[in-house]
């Protein structure tokens, strides 16, 4: 059994870790997710060989990442997060009383070569790290849920409206941060 885990870790450990890190952007959370995946994999005996071990393990990892996210949401009720954010007026700073943009969005100068692309992604990474953790994770994990919103809400036990508000705030934060920090080359 431990042999199995050893093999899995040798063959797929780095891949699973990168998959988790790409979405959690936190080394400890990513390690936890891989550990939970191995514990679940060894118990399930579910590997039938009709898919590759990597595909099978990645499927388990996705569930474990959602579990981790759900736990985070339980520890701090979502209402706290929303209230907390509502009291900070950063969103109101973007629009005037009649709902018009105060600071009109500009088009991004998207990178047009490999070097710029690298710089751009590193700016984006920095912007992601500035977001509150929960907003970052709900935004980055969108692609591991069965993609539609109903599922995200069911899996996280939050209302659709709350999910939309959080995703909106994540996007507003990121685009503002990119506008400020990415001027193009």
């Amino acid at each position: 059994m431990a042999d199995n885990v050893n093999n899995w870790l040798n063959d797929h450990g780095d891949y699973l870790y990168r998959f988790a890190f790409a979405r959690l952007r936190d080394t400890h959370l990513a390690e936890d997710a891989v550990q939970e995946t191995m514990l679940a994999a060894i118990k399930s005996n579910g590997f039938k060989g009709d898919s590759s071990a990597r595909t099978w393990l990645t499927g388990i990892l996705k569930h474990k990442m959602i579990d981790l996210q759900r736990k985070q949401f339980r520890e701090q009720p979502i209402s706290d997060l929303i209230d907390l954010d509502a009291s900070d007026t950063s969103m109101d700073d973007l629009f005037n009383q009649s709902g018009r943009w105060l600071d009109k969005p500009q088009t991004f100068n998207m990178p047009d070569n490999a070097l710029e692309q690298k710089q751009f992604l590193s700016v984006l990474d920095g912007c992601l790290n500035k977001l509150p953790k929960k907003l970052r994770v709900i935004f980055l994990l969108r692609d591991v849920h069965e993609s539609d919103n109903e599922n995200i809400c069911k899996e996280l036990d939050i209302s659709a409206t709350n999910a939309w508000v959080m995703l909106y705030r994540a996007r507003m934060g990121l685009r503002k941060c990119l506008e400020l920090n990415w001027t193009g080359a």
Partner: protein
Amino acid sequence: MLTCKQISQLVSQSLDRPLSWSERVQLKLHVLMCNACRHFKHQLNQLDIAIQQLKNETMLDQTIQLPIDAKTKILQAIELDKKSI
């Protein structure tokens, strides 16, 4: 008429849920007339693409590896788990 603030919320939600017919029409008309919201919509599309690129880049980055001590910790956790059964 929806304000830019409301439109910006719709633009964001259009990436998370199917909009209703009337929402789609209002969004389309507004964006035709309003540069700021058109840029905003473009920004969110670019953001989605960039996020996907960042994930792809992470997946290809061979220097990102499961740390050795994490691996040891996992194997220990499995041993412990086995004993507890």
